[in-house]
């Protein structure tokens, strides 16, 4: 399969993830969107690694997956703590930084 197909898939997944981050009101949904965007990046890395016959892309992807796992763990923990304190995870109500 040509490289363009992988890149198109990655762009599609990234756009879906971004759409999710922007439109979801639920904090968990936003986190899911972020996961999708990160995976789009992973697809790109693997595709380019394969295309250039360079193992660096695969290596990077392994690191990204590991970091993503950690990120999700911390992110979900924060969401749970917020839920305990505020009894909600609706993003509309989490606006302490409003000017």
């Amino acid at each position, binding site marked *: 399969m040509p490289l363009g197909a992988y890149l198109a898939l990655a762009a599609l997944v990234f756009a879906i993830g971004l759409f999710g981050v922007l439109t979801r009101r639920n904090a968990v949904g936003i986190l899911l969107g972020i996961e999708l965007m990160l995976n789009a990046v992973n697809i790109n890395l693997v595709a380019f690694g394969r295309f250039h016959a360079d193992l660096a892309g695969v290596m990077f992807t392994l690191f990204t997956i590991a970091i993503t796992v950690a990120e999700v763990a911390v992110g979900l923990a924060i969401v749970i703590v917020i839920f305990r304190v505020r009894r909600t995870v609706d993003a509309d109500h*989490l606006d302490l930084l409003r000017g």
Partner: protein
Amino acid sequence: MTPRVGSATLALLVLGLPFASFLLLAVVRPLRRSAPAAAAVSIAAIAGSLVTALLTMSGAAPLAAQQSPSTTWSWIPADGGPMATVGVMVDDLAMTMLLLVTLVSFLVQVYSWAYLHDEPRTSLGRYYAYHSLFAFSMLGLVLAPTFLQMFIFWELVGLCSYLLIGYWYERPSAARAAVKAFWITKLGDLGLVAGIVMLWSATGTFDFWTLFQMASLGSLPVEALPLIMFLIYLGAVGKSAQFPLHVWLPDAMEGPTPVSALIHAATMVTAGVFLVTRAFPLFRLTPDLLTLIAWVGAFTALLAASMACVEIDIKRVLAYSTVSQLGYMMAAAGAAAPEAGFLHLIAHGVFKALLFLGAGVVIHVFHTNDLFRMGGVRGSPWIWLPFVVGTLALSGVWPLPGFFTKEAILAGVLDARLLVPFAMLSVAAFLTAFYMFRVVCLAFFARPHHAGHAHPRVPGLMNGVCWVLGALTLAMGLQQAFFSGHHEISGPGWLPGFSLALAGGGILLAWAMYQRRAIDPARVARALGPIEWMARRRYGLDGLFAGLYRGVLLAFARLIGWLDRYLVDGVVNVLSAWTLRAGDRVRRLQTGQPQDYVYGVALGTLLLFVLAQWGLR
């Protein structure tokens, strides 16, 4: 007389002692709060200065030709030599003034101790601190070798004058008089500072000696000189109370009487005359200005003498008399006879201090300044004798110093062919004798208005100082009469008789009007009509200045205030309101929603892509 130069070290010591005393009194609070200690420090310092001044005078060495009498150190460093120098100029003029200033300061400070004995102890320390500062400033002014240094000390004596006039600052009239004196002299000082700066930009130096050398070599820029010297003269007009800036001096009598004796009679007010005498080699190059100085001086002498004749406050009579005598000195300088004016300055310094301190005794005895509520102490000659000696000296009676110096001035004015000023000065001399004996007759010899002053008590210290000054006056006169063989200016042969006749006429008239009551003063006043009416109202000059102040200065201040309040403040307020409103708008961008920020990031990235692809070719 060959010019002489004194030791700079001694001169610095003369200057340093009162300054040390001032610092001590200003910094050490317990010393200042305890009156006897403060007075002792101040009097000891000025006594040391007096002795040192005497040593300076006696140890003076002859000055070689082309040798500078100044010792200077560089002050403001600049490329190619210092911009200004400081130092001392210990020539004959300065040494004579040193002696006068330290002597009168010393006597006045001693006298003040008795005169202000009933003052609160705590404020007396302040009084002596001011006195020490004044002595330092005046001595510095006298010793200044450059215009710049002189100007600094010039302002310092003005400050001391302000502080001491307002010594009783809780009294509104004293506070107002202090401010008035400060304002009016500042008016003249504006001219002085402008003149000094212009002189510097024209010649590149402040130094008197360098300027005198340039003047004698004829290398001064003559075309700019008249304006410069006129501006410098304006400073002297303010300080030495010349018409029309004389209005502050009579009001300055609100201060304690010893202050009037020291600052407003003997020393500070003569600073203007001293300035003109000091800078005379420069004034000599502007003959038209000299003529103006002579006219203004003579007119001041006459005007002030006429006002003194109708004044009923003994201190104000003496104040007008001071203005009048300052006019005399200025007229002498204007007639190119500054040495006559300077001699009169020295003699006047001694006997006018005597008169003021004598007036202090009178005020102490009668508890009033009003001449018509005094009298009846003919039986106590120890009170009136020194005052009468001073009065005779001021009137110009042989063999007292006023006679010789006044004659020298009249001769100088006549020599310069200034006939109208000569006439004005002659009338002023007549009036001087008249108003001074009016004071003597009313204050001492007139029938008492109420009994109870048969045996007035005066502190011995006060009377002692008066007697010392009286003896000094007499000694100066006798010295000039018998031991000073030569006269630099000799007038025509009829002049001594003429001036004696003027003095005698004035004395006789006053005696007839106020002692014998042979002539009714009211009838004389009616005969003089408008002049008397004007003199009583001080020729409207005080009113004119007050009107100018209120009408012009306050209106201007109000206009500026309005502009500031509504125009400047308005612009600032509008700007700040706009800033606030804009900030409020921008604030709304910060919603606190992370998703909105992500929108911004995404849109920005997209924009960058678009620009990278199509925008930036």
